[in-house]
């Protein structure tokens, strides 16, 4: 039987949704499932990890693992993969996954695929599908190695209702701290912000907002909708929005149910980060802006005029 090891996505002590999405897919493929969790003060998550659909939980819990460090994190995943004899090792879409997956693959001499959107298993034949070249193409990849390490793109798999697992916790030994790459500190994002990766609705702001006042105006729409608040590259380059808010090929790739592109022209790099969204709404003054080619609903107009009306109309509907 295929054995799938899912790397738990834990942020600020909370298990993220991608873990149960990946475990649901693993169960749907008929695989035996395990999860590996790395962090500090996470032992209390064992029940959550089981409930997310894992039958075994490999846990590396130590104060030294509180701040992300790629070397020790990799050691924990490799240790779990060896103990479990995993065929497939899956990461949810995250910077941690993107940093650790190639290391794990190199150490295990396994195949590596990032940002996969689908996988098929037919006996020994494993194939994955992934977007490439700024989402302009899709690759179908045949895996020749006996193991595959993959990072799964956000929104690729859905969590199944009523999925079950079993509590069977295995403690991993704690790897040594990496003295050649010492994490001095982590400057956290503002704590009150909704995580872009998890948000059901994302509102992104672009060059059309002009300045801080324009950005604040669009942010109010995000606040009303309890939406994640993102940005196109232009405002980040201008120093008006933080790097962590960038939606695009090089920043966050999001696939929410509803995406608002406000004052964003729609450069290819931005589209690659959001064109997997279910419904896209665009507001732009320029009726020829490329964003309208991907928008389900395009409003040609000045955002300074349209956004306040959007807020009013949405308030009416939401009562």
């Amino acid at each position, binding site marked *: 039987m295929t054995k799938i090891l899912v790397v738990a996505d834990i*942020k600020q002590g909370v298990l993220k949704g991608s873990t149960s999405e990946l475990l649901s897919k693993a169960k749907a493929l008929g695989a035996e499932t395990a999860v590996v969790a790395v962090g500090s003060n996470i032992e209390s998550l064992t029940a959550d990890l089981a409930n997310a659909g894992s039958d075994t939980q490999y846990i590396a819990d130590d104060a030294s693992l509180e*701040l*992300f460090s*790629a*070397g020790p994190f990799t050691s924990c995943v490799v240790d779990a993969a060896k103990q479990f004899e995993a065929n497939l090792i899956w990461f949810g879409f995250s*910077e*941690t996954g*993107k*940093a650790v997956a*190639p*290391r794990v693959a*190199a*150490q295990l001499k396994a195949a*590596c*695929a*990032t940002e996969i959107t689908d996988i098929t298993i037919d006996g020994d034949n494993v194939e994955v599908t992934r977007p*490439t*070249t*700024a*989402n*302009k*193409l*899709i*690759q*179908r*990849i*045949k*895996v*020749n*190695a006996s193991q*595959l390490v993959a990072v799964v793109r956000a929104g690729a798999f859905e969590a199944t209702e009523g999925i079950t697992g079993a509590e069977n916790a295995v403690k991993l030994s704690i790897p040594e701290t990496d003295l*050649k*790459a010492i*994490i*001095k500190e*982590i*400057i956290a*994002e503002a704590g009150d912000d909704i995580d872009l990766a998890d948000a059901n609705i994302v509102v992104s702001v672009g060059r059309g907002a002009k300045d801080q006042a324009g950005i604040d105006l669009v942010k109010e729409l995000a606040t009303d909708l309890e939406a994640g608040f993102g940005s196109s590259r232009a405002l*980040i380059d201008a120093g008006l929005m933080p*790097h*962590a808010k960038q939606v695009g090929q*090089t920043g966050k790739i999001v696939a929410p149910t*509803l995406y608002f592109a406000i004052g964003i022209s729609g450069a290819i790099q931005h589209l690659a980060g959001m*064109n997997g969204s279910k*419904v*896209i709404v665009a507001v732009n003054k320029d*009726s020829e802006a490329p964003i309208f080619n991907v928008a*389900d*609903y*395009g*409003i*040609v*107009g000045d955002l300074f*005029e349209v956004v306040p*009306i959007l807020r009013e*109309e*949405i308030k*009416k*509907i*939401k009562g």
Partner: protein
Amino acid sequence: MKILTTVKKVVDVELNIRVNDGAIVEDGLQYVINAWDENGVETAVQLKENNSAETTLVSIGGDDNADMIKKCYAMGIENGILIDDPALANADSSVFAKVLQKVYEKGEYDLIITGKQAQDTDNGQAGIMLAEYLNIPCVSNVVAIEVMDDSHVKVSRLGDAGTEIVELELPAVVTVSDSINEPRLPAMRGIMMAKKKKIETMDLSALGTSIDDLGGADLQSEVVEYMQPEARKSGQKFEGDAAEITAEVVGLLSNEAKVL
């Protein structure tokens, strides 16, 4: 300090890319320097200008990579190595990383800078794998770098919990984000000087290896087919009175799309 930076020539993603019978249609494609590698080149040149450093670039590909390498010379890179071998035509990230490992071992560099990923494959693997094969530290998705002393650099990485500040012992690999800098436009003087500069071209045997040694004859995975993604179904565009069309769209989001 000796800096090695990697540059890849990639298809221009701004243009249309077509697929026929599972393969990319070459006709009409144009090739450009991978944007993130250009950020890597700029990073190397800035480090050279602000500290004392020697900069070398390496590229894997055919002799048509020469114009890209000359552009990097014009930006300020001093030495260029081209690994040109037809056996690498189907190589994957792991094989590329092993080629870079051989280049590194010939030159004994202190710092290797790569773009965080290539725009054509979007893999983001080769730089990180290179560090694993060399057993040296690596920080990916770097947005700032400064030299601390001869054997340490301090980098900022955009991670899941925020901006990570990491002190790296050299030799090390960093993969850079486009947020790290704005690559310069080469000045005319640099362009003229670049024309005269040579490129050191090597095949795998000159590098002291072979495709079998690098695992390239037995790839861990291979692309079997390219497909064109399903186009998003064409949407509706509303023009006219802002109040009217905005109310109409909100109504549709609620009643038609059922997402509000």
